[in-house]
């Protein structure tokens, strides 16, 4: 039982690390701000979730488990709010999203395919 728990927690930690690294790589590779927010959101949802779940399995029943759960809950809530606030502030300040130039449903007049 102990061994099984260790193995599962190990797998969760490694896959969480992998997703976090993927998100960070996306932060470097994606072309503009709005696409980078998606990469950041990977590290905040699945990356943090898997790593914290892996730690929770090692914590056992007790106060440490409750605190880890609190961190997970709070980081999910805070990251969505921060992400939305950043995107909104960027749009308001005049940063244009880089979009593909086909007939998507964006009926806004600033449908530019490339930034000036």
């Amino acid at each position, binding site marked *: 039982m102990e061994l099984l728990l*260790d193995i599962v927690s*190990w797998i969760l*930690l*490694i896959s*969480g*690390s992998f997703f*976090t*690294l993927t*998100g*960070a*790589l996306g*932060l*470097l590779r994606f072309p503009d*701000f709005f696409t*980078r*927010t998606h990469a*950041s959101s990977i*590290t*905040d949802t699945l*990356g*943090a979730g898997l*790593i*914290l779940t*892996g*730690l929770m399995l*090692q*914590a056992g029943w007790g*106060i*440490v488990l409750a*605190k*880890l759960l*609190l*961190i997970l809950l*709070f*980081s999910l809530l*805070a*990251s969505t*709010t*921060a992400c939305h*606030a*950043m995107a909104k*502030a*960027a749009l*308001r*300040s*005049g*940063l244009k999203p880089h979009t593909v130039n086909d007939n998507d449903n964006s009926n806004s007049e600033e449908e530019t395919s490339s930034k000036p």
Partner: protein
Amino acid sequence: MYIIPAVILLIVMGIALCRAFMGPTLYDRILAVNTFGTKTVLFIAVIDFLSGRPAFLDIAIVYALINFISVIGILRFFEYSSKTALEEEN
């Protein structure tokens, strides 16, 4: 077994810092700093298990709160100060 996540989180924090220094616009930098902060929280939690000292988790919670509030605060500041911030960066 906690050493691999700890090292990867350090690498990720390094990448986020790279983006914070490179980032063409102001918002890229704020995004990178936010990512850096949330990864710091995870890093503290992992370090806590690495060293076996559960007191660190409180620091992680407080850090998560401060990180969130600071990002919102910075955004409020730049949203209402002026639009020149973005133009300067470009």
